[in-house]
């Protein structure tokens, strides 16, 4: 028999169901509600975050060890001079160098561009680096510049730029009292351990140490006997006055200031660039050996490959090159 759907029946049904539902809800009141787990988790995360925030705030208020050292006036400043020029890997090189330098307290980075004016790429990079810096620029004369197909050893690089940095340092020293400070010529493609900066910090005149992967050898460096440098261990032209790589020595600022004529000589023979500066400043006997009497390698003369962008060139010819607004 088919039951007729009367509204009366429907309402009766609703009434019964609601009553049952009410009973069910009443029963649930006494039970432990599972949803509190979710709330507990949120509360826990919030309190964890609050605790961390407190810790971080306290940490910021207390100066970190390296910050204390940075403010310590008795710690000599290291002036790192980096000549640089525009090429594909420039931003990458400067980025990873800046991340290394950022660990060193009381360091001032002098970046000198081979350019008639400062470029936005370097300017912006330095601004966000977190380092104390000076941004200089001086173009290499056209006839002295390496051409695309020239081998890298054909003409000396970075000469005008390093000399410009020394000019700025002398000017700065003349304006303010020269405290103990040291100057280091750090190219943007080498690799530096943090220890090398601590080794050079207390240089009195010129300090030296070995450099890895240079001169066609695993490393090149001074040979030390009785605490003095007696000769240099190198496989190439050992008769040079100072057969040492740019990354293998540091000069005290006082010495740079005391010899206003001392500079890198652009007309020097290949491999003699370092000597052209050092022979005007110091003799071999006066050199201060570092890095455990020159037995540890703390800096490497790494070189970065030129990226192969043949496909880019093809695309550019077709008018489909990559977006040049995207800085690489």
């Amino acid at each position, binding site marked *: 028999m088919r039951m007729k*759907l009367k*509204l009366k029946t*429907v309402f009766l049904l609703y009434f019964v169901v609601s009553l049952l539902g009410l009973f069910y809800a009443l029963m649930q009141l006494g039970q432990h509600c599972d*949803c509190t787990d*979710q709330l507990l*988790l949120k509360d826990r*995360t919030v309190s*964890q*975050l609050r605790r*961390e925030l407190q810790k971080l705030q306290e*940490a910021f208020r207390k100066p970190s*060890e*390296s910050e204390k*050292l940075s403010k310590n006036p008795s710690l000599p400043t290291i002036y790192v001079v980096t000549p640089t020029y525009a090429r*594909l*890997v420039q*931003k*990458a*090189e400067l*980025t*990873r160098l800046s*991340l*290394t330098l950022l*660990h*060193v*307290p009381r360091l001032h980075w002098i970046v000198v561009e081979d350019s008639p004016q400062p470029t936005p790429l370097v300017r912006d990079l330095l601004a966000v680096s977190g380092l104390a810096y000076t941004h200089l620029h001086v173009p290499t004369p056209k006839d002295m510049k390496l051409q695309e197909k020239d081998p890298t050893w054909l003409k000396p690089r970075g000469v005008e730029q390093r000399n410009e940095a020394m000019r700025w340092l002398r000017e700065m020293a003349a304006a303010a009292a020269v405290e103990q400070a040291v100057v280091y010529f750090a190219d943007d493609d080498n*690799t530096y*351990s*943090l220890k090398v900066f*601590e080794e050079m910090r207390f240089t009195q005149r010129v300090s030296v140490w*070995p450099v*890895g*992967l240079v*001169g*066609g*050898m*695993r*490393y090149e460096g001074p040979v030390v006997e009785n605490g003095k440098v007696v000769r240099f*261990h190198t*496989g*190439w032209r050992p008769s040079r006055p100072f057969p040492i790589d740019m990354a293998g020595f540091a000069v005290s600022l006082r010495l740079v200031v005391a010899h206003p004529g001392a500079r890198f000589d652009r007309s020097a023979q290949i491999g003699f660039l370092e000597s052209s500066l050092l022979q005007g400043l110091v003799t071999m006997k006066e050199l201060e050996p570092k890095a455990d009497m020159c*037995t*540890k*390698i703390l800096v*490497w003369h*790494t*070189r*970065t*490959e030129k*990226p*192969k*962008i043949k*496909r*880019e060139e*093809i*695309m550019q010819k077709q008018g489909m090159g*990559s*977006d040049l607004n*995207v800085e*690489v």
Partner: protein
Amino acid sequence: MVRRRDILTIVLVILPWMLLISIWHQRTVTHLLPNQKDDRRHILQESVCGFKHMETFSTQYVSSRHLPRSDVLPVIYIITPTYTRPVQKAELTRQVSTFLHVPNLHWILVEDSPKRTALVSELLLKSGLNCTHLSTETPHSYKPRGPSRDSHIPRGTMQRNLALKWLRETFQQNSQQQGVVYFADDDNTYSLELFEEIRATHKVSVWPVAFVGGLRYESPKINVFGKVYGWKTVFDPHRPFAIDMAGFAINLQLILSKPQAYFRFRGVKGGYQESSLLRELVTLQDLEPKAANCTKVLVWHTRTEKPVLVNEGKKGFTDPNIEI
């Protein structure tokens, strides 16, 4: 007329029931979420280079920054395969300088070697980083012979797979610890901004990489909805994932939830290595574009020149005891 009334009653009956059932259904689903009470703390057994070493070395390296460890920030697990060659120590040194700036980072360094070498062990110990040091040797038959003679023998594959295996053995799925995995080769250059982009990865995130594929940079193609729909590359853009190893990061939970996903190394064409892993984990639609919708370059595929050691001669000119 009776019919219309019937229909009305039926609607009146069914509608509220549908509402009730849908509400109930939602509640029951939330109850079924994995039980968060399982809060087992995993102990990192192989990390010889623990954070506590930082104190002893902060006097030697005046510059070490003590980064407070966070319990809430997801950990970035960096997997780096490495092999012995003259520039190895230099490459790893500058990697360390970069990683020291990144909080909550765990470095998994895997050597292509039968045993862990002293050079790398010491370097890791002195670094002050949280790390795990593993090693596995690529069988000779798979090692690249000569300069790119066989470009489809992928380098570092076995080492990356070992790191993935270690992660799966060390961590439980659905644990509270959030993490992201990134494959970082030892000769690339990374900006600090990249790591913060990586950290916010839910499944797999992607971004442009400079100097790969013969271009200034390679990048995913993003549509107006902010989703990846293709690859802006010249070299084989029809690969499932035409992206470099340095151009993506994977959420740790995703790695743990798919324990069969590894890099393939037999029969993998050049450039398809990344795809061999990613296609087991994710589809194109699931990719999360980073670096301002893939318009900024935050990582560069730099390569270091092989140093020319001509002056060493046959017998070696320099003292072999001095480590470079």
